[in-house]
């Protein structure tokens, strides 16, 4: 192809630098907007604290994140719900937000951390084409917006990645970028990099608040075997089996996976090994995370509708039942319903550790009416 021959001069250099500055201004504003926290409206009774209250090592850093605690009238156990370990897995943090905005705790204590890796919400994963935001149109016409972040801590706050990430204290070796993955950083290091300090802070909260049962909410690609699954530490395996059977009986099947003993750094392994908590990690199937996906945009994050996944499902290549779509309402309903089932089962195992939470919509309500029917309006 013929290229236009234009002579470069000082004037053209100044012109191009001006264009560069304009591009930097527009894109810079766009990137910086993702550092604005998402608005949440805690239900009555929640007290807001910060994660740094349990570990000062993240105080005044971008990693510090809100922690909401609600205590019921009757004494009971303590349950932790963690969303946003991976901010590109929205059903996890939307489920946590749903509990935050609706829960009325009757017995025991409920602790909700909706945005566990706060810095990972401030950027996107490069070269994935992910949307920056997901939005829900509420019945009153207002819009709730949530950031669609990255799996890993923002490299602006933790850089450079090593060639190989050696997990402490196990010595397990992983790809260098996994050093910014919160769910490979447990039990955390008080003097480590920022992701390790977040992990340490969460462990400190679990220890100091004497948490009995803790959930780490995730999503995974439909072709990944650990999907629509409950992963349970040995301490929580019996409870997990009870919950999985109950859910199966209600037509909401979950695979029950024991936490592998030699897979280190994950919440379901390290929380259970380093504290007394019953640790549970849950996964739902999210096509936007998969490698088979086509057009990648906000609609895919919300609906999970993708023609290539429809084809893969027909070929029997997926680990979730997939017909035409996998909407976020379904994925969130699975998390919410599973948590409520666990709470019910916790009461069967130990009356004194039981936690009763009211005002949480049931599975069919969430699917039929959508997430937007249960989020609060900010207008």
């Amino acid at each position, binding site marked *: 192809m013929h290229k236009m021959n234009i*002579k*470069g001069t000082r004037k*053209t*250099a100044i012109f*191009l630098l001006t264009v560069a500055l304009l591009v930097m201004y527009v*894109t*810079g504003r766009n990137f*910086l907007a993702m550092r604005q926290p998402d608005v949440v409206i805690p239900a009555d009774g929640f007290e807001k604290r910060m994660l740094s209250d349990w570990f000062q090592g993240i105080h005044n850093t971008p990693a510090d994140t809100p922690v909401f605690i609600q205590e019921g009238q009757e004494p009971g156990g303590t349950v932790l719900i963690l969303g946003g370990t991976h901010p590109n897995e929205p059903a996890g943090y939307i489920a946590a937000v749903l509990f935050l905005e609706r829960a009325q705790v009757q017995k025991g204590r409920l602790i909700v951390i909706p945005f566990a890796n706060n810095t990972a919400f401030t950027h996107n994963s490069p070269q994935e084409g992910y949307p920056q935001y997901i939005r829900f149109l509420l019945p009153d016409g207002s819009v709730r917006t949530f950031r669609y972040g990255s799996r890993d801590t923002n490299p*602006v706050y933790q850089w450079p990645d090593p060639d190989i990430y050696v997990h402490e204290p196990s010595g397990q070796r992983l790809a260098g970028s996994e050093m910014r993955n919160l769910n490979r950083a447990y039990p955390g290091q008080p003097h480590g990099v920022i992701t390790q300090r977040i992990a340490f802070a969460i462990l400190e909260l679990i220890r100091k608040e004497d948490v009995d049962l803790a959930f780490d909410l995730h999503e995974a690609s439909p072709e990944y075997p650990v999907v629509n699954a409950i992963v349970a530490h040995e301490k929580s395996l019996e409870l997990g089996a009870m919950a999985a059977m109950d859910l199966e009986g209600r037509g909401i099947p979950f695979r029950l996976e024991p936490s592998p003993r030699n897979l280190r750094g994950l919440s379901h392994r390290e929380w259970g090994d380093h504290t007394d908590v019953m640790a549970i990690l849950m996964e739902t199937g999210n096509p936007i995370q998969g490698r088979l996906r086509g057009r990648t945009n906000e609609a895919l994050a919300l609906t999970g509708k993708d023609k290539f996944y429809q084809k893969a499902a027909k070929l029997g290549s997926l680990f979730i039942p997939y017909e035409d779509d996998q909407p976020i309402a379904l994925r969130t309903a699975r998390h919410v319903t599973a948590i409520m089932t666990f709470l019910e089962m916790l009461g069967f195992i130990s009356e004194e550790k039981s936690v009763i939470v009211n005002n949480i919509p049931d599975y069919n309500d969430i699917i039929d009416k959508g997430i937007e029917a249960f989020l609060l309006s900010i207008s």
Partner: protein
Amino acid sequence: MIMLVYRGIALFISLVVVHCMFQEEEFWKQASATMVIIPLVMRVLLIK
């Protein structure tokens, strides 16, 4: 500390690229340099 060194290197390269732009006599090479500067400056400012 390592982040400061990294930003220093990114700033140094940005300035060298700007200097080269003003020496360059081909417009399209100047345009290529412009595209190199944008991510470098974003890194220096810790925006991206």
